[in-house]
Structure formats: structure tokens, C-alpha cells
């Protein structure tokens, strides 16, 4: 399938999104302890919505186009259509059995490869991702893409202060430990957006109608530009899950406070007696600190 058309002027922005199970609805099989994904509704990774909104704001202000890119199973098309319904212009799904089992390194490889193809005619100016996903939770794919494509890496961004298209300069606020860095950098760059940095728009009716009918670009590994499939999926992943297990209960069972026939005040006293019996020093320290 051909790459979607790229804008001849304005910004060429790509937002990487992931389809994730709605964590509020996850159930675990009581016997096998495995996650039951069947029937669990999927959503766009919530952190990615802040990235998508920020991308669309830049497009609305400076012109250009926002493409959403997703790696996932064929059903991840849903997530892309939802993004189109919110106002994204183009959508690309890269889907291939050989992507299955990708860790962060293999994921950044596949996405970076597709981004290279998307930038073939008109280079990509900004790649956005969410801060992290709610399922993997690693925050490593964004930096991985930036390293592979040698994009200036701007993570945990809470606001874009200025963008000078002529000079290709961008000023952002980046959350650091204990403060905020105001950074000046250059395009092309990769930005991971912090949660709460904006509010996702509600898609217009026109966008929703367009999303329902839109033809998505769907690429296999080869179509996305992958030359060596050994770099993808399980085989391209240096990390290996050796064991999946349920945490064991603490060796000693919790000491239970009986409540039958007790007034709340007595329950309170019973709990405190147990706490101070277990932690004798705590009582003295608390009294000293508070009086």
C-alpha cells in the first residue's frame, strides 16, 4: 500500500499511539491466573491522547498534517479510527504476525522504520508519543525512536512555548525531578507529552463521519520498510520473559482484629493495641513527636 500523501507545506507530524485493554475492565482467570483479554474493551492508551491533542493544536496553528501511527494486531484499526474521529488527518497501521512479542527495543525498531517510510517524500518534523503506556508502562519506546532516527529528544513535555518554523526552533517545558526545564531545541524532534498538559477535544461530527469511512494505510513488516525481520517481534527482542507468577502471600498470615460485638471505639483501641505491640518504639516516638 502506498504511503499517505504528505503535506507540501506546514508541519508533517506523526503521533504514535497504542491500543491497550481498558485496565478498569481487566479480569484475571481465577484458576490459571492469566489475563482474560477476550471481551475486554480496548482504548487508545490514555497518555497518547495528550500527544494527539498537542499535535493537532500545532497543525491548527501552523498548518500541515497529523498522521497517527500504530503497531498492533488488525483490530488496532479501531484505535486509529477513533483518532481520526478526534481530528487526525491520516492513519497508518503496521501489522504483522512477526511483530508479535516485541519488547521496547523491537517496538522502537518497527515504529522507527515506518516513520522513515512516512518521511520519505517530506521529512517528518515532529514525532509525538505519550509519556508511557498504561499496559507496558516503560516510557522507553519514545526515547528508543528518537535514538534510532537521531531526533532531538524532548520527554515529559508539559507545554510547547514557541515554535519557529522558519528557523526550525522549538521551545518546550520539560518536567524534571524537582523542577521544570525550559529547553530550546530544533526540529526534527520527538516529544513525549505529559498527562494533564491539555484537554483532548471532542471530535466534530464531520470528523467522525470521515473516520468511519476513511481508508487506512495498512502495512506489513516489508511494506513498512523492514529489511531484516529478525529485528522484529520476539526474535528482535533482547529481553526474555522467563517466568510469570503470582506473588505469594506473606509467610505469616495477617493478624485479624475481631469486630463482632464491639463498638467502633473498642475496635479503634484493639487496632492500636496491636500496632503498638508490634512496633513498641512507635508509641514513644509518636507521643514525643506530637506533644
Amino acid at each position, binding site marked *: 500500500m502506498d504511503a499517505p500523501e504528505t503535506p507540501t507545506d506546514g508541519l508533517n507530524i506523526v503521533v504514535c499511539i497504542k491500543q491497550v*485493554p481498558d485496565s478498569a475492565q*481487566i479480569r*484475571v482467570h481465577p*484458576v*490459571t*491466573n*492469566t*489475563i482474560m483479554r477476550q471481551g475486554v474493551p480496548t482504548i487508545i492508551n490514555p497518555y497518547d491522547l495528550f500527544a494527539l491533542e498537542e499535535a493537532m493544536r500545532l497543525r491548527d496553528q501552523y498548518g500541515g498534517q497529523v498522521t497517527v501511527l500504530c503497531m498492533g494486531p488488525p483490530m488496532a484499526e479501531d484505535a486509529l479510527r477513533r483518532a481520526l474521529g478526534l481530528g487526525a488527518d491520516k492513519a497508518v497501521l503496521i501489522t504483522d504476525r512477526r511483530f508479535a512479542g516485541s519488547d*521496547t*527495543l523491537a517496538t522502537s525498531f518497527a515504529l522507527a522504520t515506518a516513520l522513515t517510510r512516512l518521511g520519505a517524500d517530506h521529512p517528518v518534523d515532529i514525532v509525538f508519543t505519550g509519556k508511557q503506556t498504561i499496559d507496558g508502562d516503560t516510557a*522507553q519506546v519514545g*526515547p*528508543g525512536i*528518537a*535514538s534510532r532516527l537521531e531526533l*532531538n529528544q*524532548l*520527554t515529559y513535555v508539559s507545554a510547547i512555548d514557541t515554535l519557529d518554523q522558519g528557523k526550525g526552533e522549538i*521551545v518546550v517545558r520539560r518536567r*524534571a*525531578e*524537582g*523542577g521544570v*526545564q525550559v*529547553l530550546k*531545541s*530544533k526540529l526534527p524532534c520527538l516529544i513525549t507529552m505529559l498527562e*494533564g498538559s491539555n484537554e483532548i477535544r471532542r471530535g466534530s461530527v464531520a470528523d467522525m463521519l470521515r473516520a468511519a469511512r476513511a481508508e487506512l494505510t495498512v502495512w506489513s513488516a516489508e511494506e513498512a520498510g523492514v529489511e531484516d525481520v529478525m529485528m522484529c517481534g*520476539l526474535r528482535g527482542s*533482547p*529481553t*526474555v*520473559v*522467563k*517466568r*510469570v*507468577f*503470582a*506473588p*505469594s*502471600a*506473606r509467610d*505469616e498470615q*495477617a*493478624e*485479624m*482484629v475481631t*469486630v463482632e460485638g464491639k463498638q467502633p*471505639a473498642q*475496635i*479503634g483501641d484493639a*487496632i492500636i493495641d496491636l*500496632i503498638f505491640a*508490634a*512496633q513498641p518504639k*512507635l508509641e514513644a516516638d*509518636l507521643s514525643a*513527636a*506530637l*506533644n
Partner: protein
Amino acid sequence: MAAQPPNKKPAGRAGMKKELPEKFRSYKHVWVFVELERGKVHPVSWELMGEGRKLADKLGVDLAGVVLGPKSDETRQAIKETYHYGADVCYICEDPALADYRNEPYTRALTDLVNTHQPEIMLLGATTLGRDLAGSVATTLKTGLTADSTELDVDDEKSLAATRPTFGGTLLCTIHTLNFRPQMATVRPRVMAMPEPDRSRSGRMVWHSLKMDEADIVTKVLEYVADATTDDANLAYADIVVAGGMGLRVPENFRLVTRLADVLGGEYGCSRPVVQKGWLPADRQIGQTGNTIRPRLYIAAGISGAIQHRVGVEGADLIVAINTDPAAKIFEFAHMGVVADALTVLPALADAFERRLGRRAMAS
């Protein structure tokens, strides 16, 4: 009781375990990245140093700290302390370009150091800085990285076993990087215990130069705005923490949680759905994706005890759970439990503490 762990077959490369490729056989020693930002070392670095020491001793190798920063008294102080917290060696790169954290020069310095000195294991804090850096370095080196590990060990084959929660709220998984080096992992602050420093310790220094000019670095720091720290939640380091979960049902009931925390001179927190509902700000979240706490006393009310919550509180000396469901997971790792309505027990407990400690809370 927890169900028996499913006896899963190792997936993927584990099934194709082969000898470590020749080029990685010389990789040796355990490294900890010492996160020095604006003159201060993040405590997570010392926590990792304690853990790194254990791994190095098991492997019979050296523990090294990597200190990157500008030439300054603070950098020199950080180097000294790196030995105090257990390092045998320090790899040091001092350069004005490393004064503020920026991805580009830090990635360059750390990857160059790894390529030159070849550690087998490298640990970083899972802070904003550590995650930004670890992702770039692991990708540049094309090696494996386990993010947010909650437990580190070395197995019989001397390979790093990094354990972390998996999606879904009940399971843990152990991840290995078999055929690549270094084996990288990040760990969140407070997950590992703070070791006792030994002020008499010292060690070797290995210097490295950045080989990068300020003119080569694209990104510039225009300004740094420090957080107003006054009313920040200091949850991670609190001695006493009281938290509420979805069992409290409505936001107003969190007053019962804050009152008990006030009576005890402690901090209050919550489970993740409480933050997702917007009832409390994100900095009050406890668990894998929030704060990890290690208080002397943790009281959890109306919290079910999902694995992501559990890994954030297991360092507490004493966990007291209040939950109406006797089968709630939290009773599997709490030290004490009460099967009762938190809306009754929380105020009763606050009153009882006030009586016992002889003080009326100011904010009730």
C-alpha cells in the same frame, strides 16, 4: 492463599538460550548510574548502590558508580559518597556541558563509557532523568532494558533476573537479557532500601572525557524553574502513611483519611483509580506508577491490594488493612487486618489515637 504460579514455558529467546556471544564475554562488573542533578544526588542512586553491591558480591565482581557532571565541589562530593554507599570504582566525566541534564551529552558520555569499560549490568533510577537516559542508551547499545523493576537478583547462570509487575493487577514476571550486554534495568525511588553509608570507604577513579563541544549540542537549557516545594506531598519519605481506595466510594470520605493522617503527623495517599477519578492529585498516588513508600506504619482503607499497589507499599514496616471483603488480596500481604467498614473504622481509629497520644488534631 495465592494460587500456585502457572508453570509457564520460557518464551522466545529463552527457548533458544545459547552461549553468550564472544564479543560480550569480556563484559564484567556492576554499574550504577549516579543521578546528579543541579548539584544534588537523587537518593534513588544510593538505594541502587545498595542493591548493586549485593549483585556484585554474588557475582564476585566490582561495583562501580558513574558520575557525570560539571567540574564542581558538588561533583567531587558525589564521587566521595559513591564510595561511601558501596562502590569500588567511579567512572567520572566532568564537563561544563553536563551541568544541566540533557539527553544528548549524557547519552554520549554513558554509551562511550559502556563501550570502553564494558559492564555486565547497569542500573539506573526510574526517574524522569533516568528513564529519558536509559531508553536512549539501551537503544544505542541495542541491548535489553527492564523498566521499573521491583526485585533484582542473579540466577545460577549469573544472568540478571529483573522482576516487575505485568499488566492486569495480579502477576509478576521475571525478565532476562540473555544474549546482550550490558543487562540494563531501572528501579523506582524507594523500591530498594537505603543502605547505611560507610564514611571510611574509598576507591579508584577512572576519568573519561566527553569529546563533545557545547556547539555540537542542539538542545539548550534556557531556564530551570524549581518547584515550590513547600506544600509538596512528601509521601515517599513519610514515616506514617494513611491511604484510601475506591472502597471509600465518594471523594468527601477522603476527609476521614486526611484526618487520621493529621492525627498521626503523617501523610495521606490513595490508589490509582482515585487519581483517575480526579478525587486526589497524581502526586498522592501510591504504587508502581505512583509513589513507592517505606513508612514505619501504613494504614490502607478500602484498597483491594492489586499487585501494582502492593509493590509500592511492601517496604513498609507494618501494614494495617481495613477492608469489608475478607478475601481481599491486601490481607495476603498486610501484617494486620480488620474486616470492617472503613467509614466507621477510620474515625474510630483517629479518635482512639487522639485519646492515646493525648493530643487533639488541629485539623478535624
